[in-house]
């Protein structure tokens, strides 16, 4: 067992102590319930032992994980994160459930659910780590968004604007700010002023969109807890019980996912989603324009210029590829043509001239043949006026070829 640097006896002992203490608390709560309420020994006030498994794992991960491959490290981090959520959920939901009698258990469960729902309404969760981890779980979709945005904008972390308190700004103040940002610039730097005003407007717009999106997830958490409460009630009425922590966790996930699926299928969510993505893109675009202008001022190549070059290069490459393709087909056709018989040396000059003419004729035929065989090639590669003309000619040749072959 001790061969494993992670899975050693001391770590397991920590685990065992922790969960033994949990069992002891359950027994204490049971005896408290038997001796009646108000003994001051209820689970909510029990001195919970800090979860040692978490610190031990985190410490181990920090020391050992760098030796693992990149995907393994990322994966380990996800396992750790979700392990914490799982343990947090178990702590949160089982604290008061060991009392043994049904009435107290319902009361404890409702108390837990109520406090979580209050937390979604903005109540303070300071000091309750398990609760924080639970609430953090509902932010997974938001967290995914922020991680993604951070990866796309290293200079602007995804949560940069999240907590900036502008959304709660009183109406008149907000209007005043909007008016100020709409005022035309003055003097020599008026264009620059307008750009910064626009940057602020798009930034504020993104912030509003993000806060609307966050609010959606808060009410999602609230509804999920209600769904869990309803489902547990239904199980009670049906005489069913959940007998393991994993069973409870899966039920909880099922409720979250079911509520989420209902809510995100609505036009309202589609609007919030679209607004969030569009606001973010507008902000990024505004920043890109300003960066481009700064680069231009320093006589550096800009993104806009590079894109123009890329577009032109791609047009040229399309044409080149099409031409190369047609040339290859011509070569293939030529290779299949019978070579002209070589007459006597005395006639060589005349023969060469004749062969040249025949060759010209064959070449012409090959071109037609090429058009025919490449009819499946895109006739839509025109990207300029001259390209368009070429395409039309090719199409005309194709029609002729098709006609002559009876197609």
């Amino acid at each position, binding site marked *: 067992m001790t061969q494993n640097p992670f899975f050693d006896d001391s770590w397991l002992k920590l685990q065992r102590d922790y969960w033994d203490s949990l069992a002891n608390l359950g027994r204490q709560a049971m005896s408290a319930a038997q001796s009646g309420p108000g003994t001051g020994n209820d689970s909510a006030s029990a001195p919970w032992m800090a979860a040692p498994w978490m610190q031990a794992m985190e410490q181990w991960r920090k020391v050992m994980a760098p030796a693992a491959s990149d995907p393994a490290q990322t994966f380990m981090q996800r396992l750790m994160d979700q392990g914490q959520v799982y343990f947090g959920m178990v702590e949160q939901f089982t604290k008061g459930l060991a009392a043994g009698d049904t009435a107290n258990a319902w009361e404890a469960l409702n108390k837990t659910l109520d406090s979580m729902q209050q937390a979604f309404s903005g109540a303070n969760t300071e000091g309750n780590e398990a609760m924080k981890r639970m609430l953090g779980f509902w932010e997974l979709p938001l967290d995914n968004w922020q991680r993604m945005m951070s990866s796309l904008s290293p200079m602007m972390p995804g949560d940069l604007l999240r907590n900036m308190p502008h959304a709660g700004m009183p109406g008149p103040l907000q209007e005043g700010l909007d008016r100020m940002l709409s005022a035309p610039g003055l003097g020599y730097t008026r264009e620059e002023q307008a750009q910064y005003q626009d940057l602020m407007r798009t930034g504020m717009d993104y912030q509003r969109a993000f806060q609307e999106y966050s609010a959606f997830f808060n009410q999602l958490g609230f509804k999920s807890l209600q769904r869990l409460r309803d489902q547990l009630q239904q199980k009670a009425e049906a005489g069913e019980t959940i*007998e393991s922590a994993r069973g409870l966790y899966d039920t909880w996930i099922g409720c979250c996912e079911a509520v989420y699926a209902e809510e995100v299928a609505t036009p309202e969510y589609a609007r919030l989603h679209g607004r969030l993505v*569009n606001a973010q893109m507008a902000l990024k*675009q505004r920043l890109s324009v300003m960066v481009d202008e700064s680069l231009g001022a320093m006589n550096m190549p800009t993104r806009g210029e590079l894109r123009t070059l890329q577009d032109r290069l791609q047009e040229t490459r399309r044409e080149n590829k099409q031409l190369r393709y047609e040339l290859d087909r011509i070569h293939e056709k030529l290779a299949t043509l019978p070579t002209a018989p070589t007459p006597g040396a005395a006639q060589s000059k005349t023969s060469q001239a004749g062969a040249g003419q025949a060759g010209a004729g064959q070449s012409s035929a090959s071109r037609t043949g090429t058009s025919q065989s490449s009819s499946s090639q895109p006739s839509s590669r025109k990207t300029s006026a001259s390209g368009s003309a070429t395409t039309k000619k090719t199409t005309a040749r194709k029609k002729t070829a098709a006609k002559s072959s009876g197609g």
Partner: protein
Amino acid sequence: MFPIDIRPDKLGEEMLDYSRKLGQGMQNLLDAGDIDSGVSPKDAVYREDKLVLYRYQRPADVAQQSVPLLIVYALVNRPYMTDIQEDRSTVKGLLATGQDVYLVDWGYPDQADRSLTLDDYINGYLDRCVDHIRRTHGVDKINILGICQGGSFSLMYSALHPDKVRNLVTMVTPVDFKTPDNLLSNWVQNVDVDLAVDTMGNIPGELLNWSFLSLKPFSLTGQKYVNMVDMLDKPEKAKNFLRMEQWIFDSPDQAGETFRQFIKDFYQQNAFINGTARVGERPVDLKQVRCPVLNIYAMQDHLVPPDASKALNGLTGSEDYTELAFPGGHIGIYVSGKAQKEVTPAIGEWLNAR
């Protein structure tokens, strides 16, 4: 009656067991080493820009069919999903049925590929791959197996080049992009795709990952990792999960112009259903798909709902249309044990009969 009956001692034991497995799993992850992907031997037979066309080596003991099969994977994610591990390989299953298997690997587009259009992909890259295979084998027509977005590409290709396609197999392929249960479609309706592409150039793979994970965020970014702990105590299973995890997050960026056209034409305008699909200057008429069609969909597919695929029925000009429903999800249709037994042999049998 109270519906939660978790005895404290049992809870302690359960959590201890979880911790033990987590610890063992972590150790297995640490020992996993590099993760290989794509297990069947293959040769690169054609290259163009970032595209590579592979031909898989045929097993010595299997008689090979004369008509080769080209697998056209989506631009999203990587095609090694079809050959992800020894006992979970669609490619291997197809080889076992005698198919001569080719696969298009589109590569990882960068900003220089931003201007690539659907026309470039379908009438350019894909057509040149098909021609290469036709020339190599001296055949006029080949078989095509299109997967997901690659299935949509294959449909367009078969409509535009019916003279080069002998049989078409579409797997988990979106055709009707606006079925009510299509969450991705619902979300993208209000997205200003022009603004996104003009801003980003290429669309980053991370953005697509976010969209896919958002379909089931609590299961895919939460529960999955908790459940996985049960399976990580075996080193080989740990490695398999790492391989899958690597694939899930291995999302190439999308060439901007292609993304713009695909999202606007298909997700927003539902071009197959409305008959408005175009590639370059050419309209796509699905009635031109006259070859036999096998349409395979997954009944629990949350990315391409079954109805999105089943909509193909009646849209093509084929008189030989077959559907195959697989009881699983979008990924399970390639990697599940059930798929190895049911889906791949069925494809081989269907192709061999035609």
